[in-house]
Every structure is written in C-alpha cells, then in structure tokens.
C-alpha cells in the first residue's frame, strides 16, 4: 500500500554548473603552456539551476523537456553519479539506475561471477545475491552458459543477463530511461511484462522519455525542464498538456505523408515537421527516427507522437536551401535477422519563406 506523504527523494534548490574548457586540454604539456600563457578559458554554464521537487514513495515521476534541457544531468545527480554544484538531494532507500545496463561487466568473468560483480556495484550483499542467483539465471535464460566467460556471449545474451540482474534485485527507487525491453521477440515480451509488473508495484520510479505518450502512460506526476530550469510540476497530464502546447506553439504542418515520399518536399527552416505515420507503424511496434543532413550526419531532433502523427522538432535551425532526409525505421531492434525492420526515407528541401 502506498503511504501517502512519505518523501523518498527530496531535491532542494539544486544546481549544476559545468566548467567546460573551450578546448579539451588533457595532456600536461598543453596544460602548462596554456597555463603560462593564461589561455585556459572556461565556458561556464548551468546545466540545471534552482530545481526543487519532492518524490513520494510509490510515485511514478516523469521528467520531460527537450534535449539538453538538463534531464540527464538531473538524473545523474539523483543517482549520485555527479554531485550538484549547489543545493541538496536527499534519498531514502536504495536507487538502482536502469541506464547503460551492460556497464560494469567484465568480459573475462563468467556470467555467474558477473552477477556478483554487478550486484555488488549496485550495493547488494553476497547473501542477498546468493538468494537471488537462481532467479536471475532462470529469467535470463542463460542456463548452461552461466559458467562460461562473458566474452563468449552473444549481444542478446549479455543484455538479457544485464536486464535480469537489474530487475530481479528489487530496488526501492528505480531510474528509467525509456521502458526497457531487450532480447528477441519472445524475451522482449517477457521483459516488457516484468517492467509492467515492476511499475505496478510500490516501487518509486523516475522516468525520462522522449515519447510524451509513454510518460503519460507510466507516470502519475511530472516536471518539465527547460534550459535547466523547472518550468512546471504537477499531475502528469497537466504538465504534458502544457509541454506539448509549448512545443507545438510554432508549428506549421509541413509534411503530411501517408506513404513514404517519392518526391522532394519544400520545408521552411525552424519548423516542427509533422509526419502522419499510422499507415506504416503497426500498433505496439517500436520505431526510431533520424533526421539526416545532406552530408549524411545526424541532425539533433526532439520527437513527439500525438494523434497518429509524428512530430520532429530540429534542435537547431535548418539551413536554407538544403536537402534533408527523415529516416524512419520500424520493427523490433533485436530482430535484425528476421527482416522485421522496415525503413522509410522521406527526403525534403528547405526553402526561404
């Protein structure tokens, strides 16, 4: 049962200032030269500033905002990986970050040894891990390979093991970056089920996702960050409504395609680009999308789905008179072999208004 009012995360006026060297100086010679010439210049900026909120036990707490709004910095401060420049964060209970699941593994170690190693990094005792050992191995379906070195595992096996460790040890507070599902189609279903059951429990969740829809689905409360400042906090639907309203405030619908395009489409710069995708994304399928410039480099974007439409907002202003392509892939990431991935390319050209 949820005990109302028990605060498990208390973030108080937290700020994080980065001192970024204008150029990366990582060798002694350069440092000494620059130091003597007084050329060590720093760019100071606040990635997060003046953020305060409280998370109560059992809350499913979402963080929304554009790329670079300070979401990951905030998560890293809460998980303790980085220390805030100012302010205070208090945590009651153990936190397990479900980010970069495979980190901390040693390839020379067997699966079983890695369970102890990773488990100990997450702060669990030997006794506890002994108790959970069989459950972790069972769930990961590694079975007879558990006593061979990890370097001989397939990628799928490694991620199954990582997922199994992270979710079998039941944390009080979980940090999630997108809902996790790993492995082949069968295991994916199983892992999604486990995620859902964990979300239903009394575990406190901090959730960051680019998909506003999944934030609405998973969370009951949310905060909205913009440029490191907290714009709003409250019930998830209120925050998400306002956030979407703001994101689309300068939208003019540019592309409305029900089919992958064959011809060039003209797009004014600095616009939200919307794509109707209901025709080629099946219910429940995962997808990912990239905006590529003419040189084939990825262009940073924010993506949002709303009413069967996919919106992408370029993080920087698009260049005039340049060709861009939207790449859309749908299907299951780990099913590469089964040819279950569909690719769509939507080319367009920017024009001056």
């Amino acid at each position, binding site marked *: 049962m949820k005990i109302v009012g028990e605060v498990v995360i208390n973030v108080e006026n937290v700020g994080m200032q980065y001192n970024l060297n204008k150029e990366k100086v*990582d060798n*002694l*010679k350069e*440092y000494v030269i620059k130091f003597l010439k007084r050329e060590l210049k720093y760019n100071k900026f606040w990635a997060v500033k003046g953020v305060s909120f409280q998370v109560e036990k059992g809350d499913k707490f979402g963080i929304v905002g554009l790329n670079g709004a300070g979401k990951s910095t905030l998560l890293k401060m809460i998980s303790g990986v980085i*220390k805030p420049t100012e302010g205070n964060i208090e945590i009651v209970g153990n936190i397990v970050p479900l980010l970069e699941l495979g980190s901390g593994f*040693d390839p020379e170690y067997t699966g079983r040894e890695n369970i102890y190693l990773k488990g100990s990094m997450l702060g669990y005792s030997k006794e506890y891990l002994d108790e959970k050992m069989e459950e972790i191995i069972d769930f990961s379906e590694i079975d007879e390979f558990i006593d061979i070195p990890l370097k001989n595992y397939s990628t799928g096996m490694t991620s199954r093991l990582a997922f199994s460790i992270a979710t079998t040890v039941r944390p009080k507070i979980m940090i999630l970056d997108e809902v996790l599902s790993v492995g082949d189609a069968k295991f994916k279903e199983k892992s999604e089920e486990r995620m859902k059951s964990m979300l239903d429990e009394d575990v406190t969740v901090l959730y960051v996702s680019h998909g506003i829809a999944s934030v609405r689905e998973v969370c009951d409360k949310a905060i909205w960050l913009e440029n490191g400042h907290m714009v709003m906090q409250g019930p998830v639907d209120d925050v998400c409504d306002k956030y979407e309203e703001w994101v689309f405030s300068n939208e003019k619908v540019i592309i409305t395609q029900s089919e992958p395009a064959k011809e060039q489409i003209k797009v004014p710069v600095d616009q939200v680009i919307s794509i109707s995708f209901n025709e080629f994304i099946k219910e429940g399928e995962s997808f990912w999308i990239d905006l590529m410039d003419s040189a084939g480099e990825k262009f940073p974007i924010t993506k949002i789905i709303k009413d069967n439409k996919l919106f992408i907002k370029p993080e920087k202003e698009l260049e005039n008179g340049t060709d861009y392509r939207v790449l859309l892939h749908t299907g299951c990431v780990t099913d590469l072999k089964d040819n279950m991935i569909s690719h769509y390319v939507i080319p367009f050209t920017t024009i001056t208004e």
Partner: protein
Amino acid sequence: MIKEHRFIANFMKYKFLLNQLVNRDIKVKYRNSVLGIFWSFLEPLLTMVIMTIIFAFIFKRDIPNFPVYYLIGRVAYMLFSSGTSGAMKSIIGNASIIKSVYVPKYLYAVSSVLSAFVIFLMSLIILVAVMIATHVNFTILMIFASLPIIILLILTVGIGLILATATVFFRDIEHLYGIFTMLLMYASALFYPASIIPQKYQIILTINPLYAIIECLRSVLLDGVLYNPSTLMFAAVFAIVSLVVGMGMFYKYQNKFLLYL
C-alpha cells in the same frame, strides 16, 4: 559534507564490492594460465634465480645471501609499483561504470592496491621458503617487519590516490610513470649493495622512502638486527603525508572526474 558515520555505513555497504574488485583483479590476472595463482610464487622465485646468477656469480658482488637480499627488495618494490600503477589506471579503467552507477570512487583505487597487497602476501611465502633454504636465523625481531610493511601499504595507497586523481586530468602521467618506476627500481638498491653508490649521490637513497622501507626489512629479516628507528620514522612520515595529500586531492577532485572520463 560527509559525516563520519555515513562514511562508515557506506564502507560497510560496499565491503562486498571491495572484496569483488580485489578478487577480480587477481582472478583476471591469472585466468587462462595453466598454473594460475602459482605464478605469484613462481614469478619472484624465477626472477630471483636469474638475478642471483647474474649478480652473485657473473658480476660477483659481495652481498651475503644475495637471494634473500634481492627478494626482500623485489617483493617490496613490486607491491609499490604494481599497487600504484593499478590505482593510477583504476578510475579511467572503470569509466563506464563510474558514469552509470554511484559507488564511492576511492574503492576502485583502494581495491587495486589491495589486490597488489594480496599478491605481496603470497610472495612472502616464497621469501620465507628461501630464507629457510638459505639457513637464515629466525629471530623474534622479525615481528618488527610488520611495521615497515604497514608503512609501505599506506605509502602505496597514498601515492596511488594521488596518481589516480592526476591521471584523470592528465593522461600523460600513465606513460611517464612507467619510466619513473623503472628509475625507482634502480634507485632502490634492489640488486646491488647500497655502498657502491658514491658518497655524494647517497642522498638518492636517503630521500627514497621505498629504499628506507627495504632497508628496514633487510635489517630485521636478513641481518637479525633492529632497524634504525629514524629510518623507519622517515618512511612513516613520508607515507602519512602522501596518504593525507592523496585523500585530500581525491576528495577535492573526485566530483570532476566524470567530466574528464
């Protein structure tokens, strides 16, 4: 600020991790070798044989019981050099985990030193065996060998923490330190008598804390006389100062590690 009780509670929580990290260092080092952990006995023994042949027979240096003389210096030197270089690489080597899970970072550095210490303890078995084989007189004074060993451990942790911190910011140190440890080996009189160094260069040995420790160990283990307390004192002061500096540096800069990893 970190309060003491939190520090201790944290340490208790991560005791198993420390154990795991030390274990991993040792296991991975000897994994896939047929003789495994026995290499930690064999390695010093074989080097000792080679050094004895070269220096006791070919160059004919007049050192009584050269094998034990050399072995004492070597095990101490190996603890220091492998412990400090392990600690130096520990933060960079664990970058991916440091970026994703919070663990007190000093554990990575300390575990590297401790795994070198475990290997050191095992090589002591070989030392004792060689002492028996060469008919060294065992005396009660030998229990005083524990003091220089503790000081050596403190020194290794201290220098290890300084190197771990500095290397995150300046990767050159990694390469520089390899040269430095070689220099240190020659400056610690491992395989020659200290007396061959000309009087005006004796200062090199006097200011070398590692040599001071080796000298103390040799006098109680080999010569059966108590070392000069002031020699031990010098090493102890040096070790404690480096530990304080190392802890201070590590504590001050550890929050910036992430930006440079």
